[in-house]
């Protein structure tokens, strides 16, 4: 079984990757790009060209793909003042030392900056705890230079900005740069410094008597070309939040200027909620009605159900949705028209009320067709010998139907269930639109029309992954209920 699973999963990964790549190119090769829609009389060609290059659209599509794949798994360290989760660190100098403060959106009472092991040894750094004040901000506390870990991010703290007079120069370090001013006559062409590791840093003259500023990473520097120079150990402070290394990044949405994973989280949950409810309705009703009409074959009720399910099944979903909306929301006023919550009401009951219509629309059509499947497979099973045997054995009719027959009659339904799983994450495009349900389907439409490539690929990734998982799950379930199927 394990070998089987591994094989299936490997093939699955290949499929997902292939579809992902195809989608990427399909979106990129479709006419227009995310910026064409922004064209208007007041947007000049230069403005657009600038936007394109900011988002890397001046590169050929293959290069963009390669870049995207690289960024997907490898995160370049970035200097970030604030990032995701609403965490905002503020590093600034106070009385000659660096202090660090922080603000977060949903602030915990304390925030721990853990000094890394190496920094403990090398810099003598120690853990720092920030306590939340009444205003949600954390009071600044003194902090030593070194590397600290906050959650899964790292914060590098340099020494506070400093000014040192030496060799007839005033060296100033701050904000990640170094600059120098002459204080004595006889200015050299440039000022040369050496970093602690031995690398040389040159500050060229920028105006008579002043040098730099040049970018200088947090480190200690000393003069390199004056034999008598005393090491000045000038540290450049740089409060920077890094998160380089392995990561998982599906790109940034151009429309929303947000990380795609972050952006799709909420729509995914919303779709999941709606689709789970709809699938439940679909399978419970579908199976029950199917079994019922098979058992009562030819009865008035069976005929009624057959007619009813054909009627519902042949109705276009969007039309049914609008009709239900008109009847139950506009005319009768029993249910809300759209959205997830009423104004000023965030209760579960309110949410359930909002779910009724979309769930009915999504579940009903599915249940109708499923009932047809279930009915025919049930009829087939009921006419088989072993069912007669079971009856002959003296099993109750109920036991025959629910235990012996249904177990076999469920097989096609299980395949359908497996194949329905992707729908959980892909969302229902039209129903979500009609009921203003903020799910994946609506995201998909808006992303496709705006050529927001990484949102489209992100949604595709979620959907194809579910297709692959769904088909594996269906096969496993199959083996579980059907003793004839063995997984090898």
């Amino acid at each position: 079984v394990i070998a089987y699973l591994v094989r299936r999963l490997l093939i699955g990964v290949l499929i997902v990757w292939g579809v992902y790549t195809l989608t990427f190119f399909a979106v990129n090769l479709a006419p227009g790009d995310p910026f064409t829609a922004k064209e208007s009389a007041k947007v000049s060609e230069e403005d657009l060209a600038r936007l394109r290059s900011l988002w890397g659209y001046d590169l050929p599509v293959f290069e963009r793909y390669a870049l995207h794949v690289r960024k997907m798994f490898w995160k370049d360290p970035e200097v970030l003042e604030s990032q995701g989760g609403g965490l905002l660190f503020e590093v600034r100098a106070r009385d000659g030392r660096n202090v660090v403060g922080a603000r977060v959106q949903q602030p915990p009472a304390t925030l721990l900056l853990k000094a890394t092991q190496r920094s403990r040894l090398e810099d003598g750094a120690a853990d720092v705890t920030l306590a939340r004040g009444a205003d949600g901000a954390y009071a600044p506390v003194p902090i030593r230079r070194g590397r600290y870990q906050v959650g899964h991010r790292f914060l590098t703290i340099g020494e506070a900005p400093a000014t040192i007079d030496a060799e007839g120069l005033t060296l100033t370090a701050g904000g990640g740069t170094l600059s120098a001013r002459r204080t004595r006559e006889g200015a050299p062409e440039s000022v040369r410094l050496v970093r602690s590791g031995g690398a040389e840093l040159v500050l060229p003259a920028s105006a008579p008597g002043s040098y730099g500023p040049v970018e200088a990473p947090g480190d200690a520097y000393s003069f390199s070309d004056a034999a008598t120079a005393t090491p000045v150990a000038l540290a450049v402070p740089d409060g920077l939040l890094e998160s380089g290394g392995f990561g998982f990044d599906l790109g940034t949405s151009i429309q929303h200027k947000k990380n795609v994973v972050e952006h799709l989280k909420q729509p995914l949950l919303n779709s999941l909620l709606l689709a789970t409810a709809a699938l439940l309705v679909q399978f419970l009703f579908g199976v029950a009605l199917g079994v019922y009409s098979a058992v009562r074959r030819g009865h008035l009720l069976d005929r009624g159900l057959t007619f009813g399910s054909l009627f519902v099944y042949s109705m276009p979903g969007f039309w049914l949705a609008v009709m239900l909306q008109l009847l139950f929301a506009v005319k009768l006023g029993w249910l809300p028209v759209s959205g997830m919550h009423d104004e000023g009401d965030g209760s579960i009951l309110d949410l359930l009320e909002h779910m009724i219509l979309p769930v009915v629309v999504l579940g009903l059509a599915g249940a109708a067709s499923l009932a047809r499947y279930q009915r025919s497979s049930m009829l087939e099973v009921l006419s088989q010998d072993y069912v007669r045997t079971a009856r002959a054995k003296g099993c109750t009719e109920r036991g025959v139907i629910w235990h012996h027959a249904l177990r076999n009659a469920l097989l096609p339904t299980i395949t359908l269930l497996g194949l329905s799983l992707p729908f959980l994450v892909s969302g229902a495009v039209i129903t979500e639109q009609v009921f203003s349900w903020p799910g994946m389907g609506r995201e998909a439409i808006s992303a496709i029309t705006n050529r927001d490539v990484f949102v489209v690929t992100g949604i595709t990734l979620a959907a194809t992954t579910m297709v692959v998982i769904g088909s594996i799950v269906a096969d496993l379930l199959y083996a579980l209920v059907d003793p004839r199927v063995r997984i090898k």
Partner: protein
Amino acid sequence: MRTPYPALLALAVLASPAPRETHADGKGKPAHAREVRAGDDMPTSAWRKAPPGAKPERGDTAILTLLQDIEGLNPYTSSTADSHYVQEMLWPRLMEEQADYYAGPPSFTPYVAESWSPAADGLSIRFTLRDCTWSDGTPITGDDLRFSWEAARHPGVGWNSASIVDFIRDVEVHGPRDVTVHYTERYPYQLMDVNDVHILPKHVFGKIPFEQWQKHGSWEEQAKVSGSHWLLEKVVPNQEISFTRNPRYWEPGKPYLDRVVWKVQGNMETNLNALLAGDVDFMQSVLPKDADRVLADEDLLLYSYVTRNIGWIGWNTGKPPFDDVRVRRAMTHAIDRENIVESIFYGYAEVAAPVIIRSMWASCPEIEPLEFDPDAAEKLLDEAGWTRSGDGVRAKDGKPLSFILVTNAGNDVRKKISEYVQASLKDVGVAVEIKLLDFNQMTQQLKKHSFDAYVAGMSVATKVDGRPIFHSKAAEGQFNYVDFKNPRVDEIIDQARLMSDKEAAKPLWAEMQRIFHVEQPYTTLYEPRGLVSLHKRFRNVNVTALRPTHNLHEWWVPASEQKYK
């Protein structure tokens, strides 16, 4: 305010044309008791004024709607009109633009700027700012304006309208409340250009380097500090954005409403149903076909006003058959535009003037649209050498007179118009094939001039400037899709667009219109009215062609009618 979104008039008509008794002329008395109709004095603004002496009362919530989620709260990294309506609630401007652009360059009333005076040489304007603060208590100063101007023009920020500030050379800060804006040249729209700079709080936005703005996300955190009438309360992506009153807003008592919530709607039909069910209070683009449903609801009012939109068919003048002016004129003669206005817009539109919309001061009222006259059309086509052959389709040198008419899919008004044009032209022996393209795809084809004819619309700027659409230079990369090049038109545009004297510019613009009237590179079809529906409990509502929520901070509801506590 300049928001021309070409070809984006998201109108959709689903129902079949039905007769309706209304005001085809778009004027006159309100057709319905529940219609608030813009008057002739200010056709661009439908204003339900409170009775004189009525005292505004505080309280209640307005539930407004959007058809698409906003693109974040930073005006310099977003581009949709909806985003800007919402952002207007947070970021102040120097002045308030009035919707009187139809009468000349728009006028401005004080906002953050208390007063202003242009220098004698016309190259700078000095502003005195009001003594006012951001919602966190920090004063709004000239530094904020300078910072915002820097953001507007910074290449890393990538504002998609950065060219607006091309003529602003410098923003000189003399003191916290004393600023001079320097321009590179004299021109009539100096105030408008500097006013398109939304003022952002430097002490908040300045913390994020300009280079990072494009990828910074929704700016929700920064938008907690407001300088305008409202305070951001909550953002739920794709669902709603809510605001409360900004207690530090400087006009005493305002805004009158406690809260404003924008709900994102799935589509227009949903918006309409939610409006009729009373779940929401607002719909910003009621379709003409739905106007009757709205008017039938006792709780709703329909605000109607003259928009800045125009719809047309563009003929590719760069290649046969439309390189021949006779063929183009014949097309216009063969299309009954009155009928389009009546049957597709139910009378909520007017037959369009040649290229400059009727409501604009520069539009010349003397030019009558070409008449609907199929006989004249047939004669012109005969003259041009396209003669009737056996199967009814005209031909010349063995080539049939047929062409492809493109428009964007998903816009039912345009589809209907295309079908109507197809049927009308068949009558005069022209075969039309309709092609519905994805919007992006269509734009690409139009830009490359690889089309015969297209149906689209344009929302024009509040200033008269033909440069991006009608100038021959605009055929490359801009909006002169029809490839119409006329040296006199170029001359007129270059000269008239920068003229400060309206009266002197008028004859020039009229001359340009006459050229377009004669040459017919466009068959201008319709100028639609804007239809906005709002619950009747809101008083003192001014819906204008600039923004449906033009004076949101002055709306109020009598205590007895307040719906939300």
